C-alpha cells in the first residue's frame, strides 16, 4: 500500500531537534536525514546500541577459529617436525589466527553494514533531497492524509524551511 508522507527540510540543528522532540511525543514514524553523524540527533531519537557490535565480535571470533583450524589442519597432514619445533606449534599459529581474526572482523561486518544500512540502493527515493548531503537536515514523516495538516503545523512551528508532500 502506498503511504503518503511529508518531508521537512531544516537549515538549523536546534530546529530539527525541536521537531524530533515533538514527533517523538506524537509517536510518529519518521526518518532523519543529515549531512553528518551528530550525536545530538542520535540522542534525540533515542537509538539503541548498534547490532554491528555483536556482528563484529562474532566475526572476529570466527576468524580466530578459522585461522587456527587452517593452520592446524595443514600441519596435521604430514606431521613434519620443522626446526625441532612441536608439530603443532602455538607461537606461529597465534600470528595466523590473529590475522584471520582481523580479516573476518572487518569483511563480515562490512557486509553486515551494507545489509543493515540497506545499501546499495538501485536509485534514490523521491523523498530524498540532494541538500541533505550538503548543509540541510531532513525529516521524512510517514503518515496518512488525515494527519498531514497536524504534522505540517508541527514541522513549521519547529522551524522547517520547507515541508513537502511525498508518496511512497
Amino acid at each position: 500500500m502506498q503511504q503518503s508522507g511529508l518531508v521537512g527540510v531544516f537549515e538549523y540543528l536546534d530546529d530539527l531537534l525541536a521537531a524530533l522532540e515533538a514527533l517523538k511525543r506524537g509517536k510518529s514514524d519518521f526518518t532523519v536525514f543529515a549531512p553528518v553523524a551528530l550525536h545530538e540527533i542520535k540522542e534525540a531519537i533515542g537509538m539503541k546500541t548498534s547490532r554491528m557490535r555483536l556482528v563484529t565480535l562474532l566475526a572476529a571470533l570466527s576468524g580466530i577459529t578459522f585461522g587456527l583450524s587452517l593452520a592446524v589442519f595443514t600441519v596435521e597432514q604430514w606431521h613434519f617436525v620443522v626446526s625441532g619445533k612441536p608439530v603443532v606449534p602455538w607461537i606461529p599459529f597465534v600470528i595466523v589466527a590473529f590475522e584471520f581474526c582481523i580479516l573476518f572482523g572487518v569483511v563480515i561486518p562490512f557486509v553486515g553494514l551494507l545489509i543493515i544500512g540497506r545499501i546499495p540502493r538501485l536509485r534514490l527515493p523521491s523523498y530524498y533531497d540532494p541538500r541533505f548531503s550538503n548543509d540541510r537536515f531532513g525529516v521524512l514523516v510517514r503518515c496518512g492524509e488525515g494527519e498531514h495538516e497536524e504534522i505540517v503545523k508541527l514541522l513549521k512551528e519547529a522551524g522547517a524551511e520547507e515541508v513537502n508532500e511525498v508518496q511512497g
Partner: protein
Amino acid sequence: MNEMSYNEVTRAIIRPMGSAGTFYKCVVAFWFLGIVVGGSCWGYQISQGLGVAGVKNPIAWGTYLINFVFWVGIAHSGTLISAILYLFRAKWRTAISRAAEAMTIFAVMTAGLFPLIHLGRVWLVYWILPYPNQRNLWPDFQSPLVFDVIAISTYLTVSTLFWYTGLIPDLAAVRDQSTGWRRKIYGILSLNWMGAHYQWHHYGSAYLFFAALATPLVISVHSVVSWDFALSIMPGWHSTIFAPYFVAGAIHSGLAMVLVLLIPLRTLYRFENIISMNTLENIAKTIIFTGFIMSYSYGTEHFIAWYSGGVEQDSFMWRMTGHYAWEFWVMLFCNSIVPLFYFFKKLRTNVYSLFVIGLLVDIGMWYERFVIIAGAPAHAHDPFMWRVYSPTIIEYGIMFGSFSLFFFLFFLFAKYLPAVSIAEVKEEAPRPLRRRTA
C-alpha cells in the same frame, strides 16, 4: 576549518575535483609512462628469467625486497593517522586522514607487486595459497613468508574497506553536487547513500570497530615483514629488535611521505584553511620522536653487535666502513640527524623545509632497507662467500615503475575522489544553530 559552514566545507573540498588542467595531465602522463617502463622491465624479466636482476648468491634479496619493505613501511603511518589517531580522538588528524589512508592502500598495492616480481615464475604464485590438491601439499604456516601472504592481504583488504566505508558519505555528497554521467558514477560508488539516521548509526559503530581492528595491524604487519629477516640465522638479520625497529621505521618513513604528498596537495588545492599548519607541525614533531627511536635502534644494534663479538661485530663494522659505507652514512644522516632540524620552529612551520626534510627522511629510510637487506648477506659467516650486490638497469626500471604507480594512483585519487573527509570535517565545524548560546 573551525569557522567554515557545512556548505563552505563541501564546496572547498569538491572544488578541485573533476576538471583536469594541462599541468595535471602532463604529470599523470609522466607517471603513466613510468608504469609502462616498469611493466616493460618486468615483462623482459619474465621472458629472460630472474638472472637479469642483480640478485645471486649470497645476496638473494635485492631491490625487490628493499622496495617491498619500503612500500609496506610507507603504508603504516596512513593507518596510524586514520585509525589510531581516530581512536585517540586527535582533532588534527581529521583533515589528512582520507589522503593518508589512500596513501596506505596505494603503497600496499605497490608493495604487493614485489613478491610477484621477485618470484620470477610469477604464474606459480598460487602455490603459496592453501588450496586442496591431489598431492595433499599445503603451505607451511610456520614460515614468515606465509605469515606475510596472510598479513599483507589482510592489510590491503582491511585498509581498502576502512577507507571505502569512510568514503561512502563523501561520495554521496559529491554525487549530489554533480550532474549527468558524473552523478551516475558517484551514485554507484556511493551505493546511493542517503544519510538516514539508521545508516549513520550503524556506520558510526562499524567505522569505530574498523579503526579498532586496523590499529593492531599497524604493529603486526610490519612485525611480520621484519620476521622475514629476523627468523633467519643471518648475522645482522637474526635480532630480536627487528619487530619494533621496523615498525618505528615504517612510521618514520610513512609520516615523511605524508608530508611529501600533502604539502603539494594543500598548496595546489588551496586547502590551507582545512589542512592547517598545526597539523603539519604535529606530523613533524612525531617524526622527531620516531627519529629518536630509529637512532636508539641503530645504537642498540651496534652495541649488541660489538658486545656479541665475532661475526655480528664484524658484520656491523663492515656496514660502517665496507663497500656499502656510503649508503650506511646517508641512512644515519637522513634518519637520525636530519629530523633534528624539526626542533627549530621556523623549519617545522615552513612548507618548503617540511617537504625537503620529509623527502630526505624517505631517502634515508630507503637506504636503511638497502643496508639491512643487501648489506647483511653480503658479509655473513663465510669470508669465501663475501660478495657485493649492485642493482641492474632492469631493477632500477622496475623501481621507477613502482614509484610511478604509487604517484599515478595518488594523483588519480586526488582529482577524482574527495581528498579530505567532508563528513568528518563537518563534524568538527560549528553546528548550524539558530539560537546560539552566549
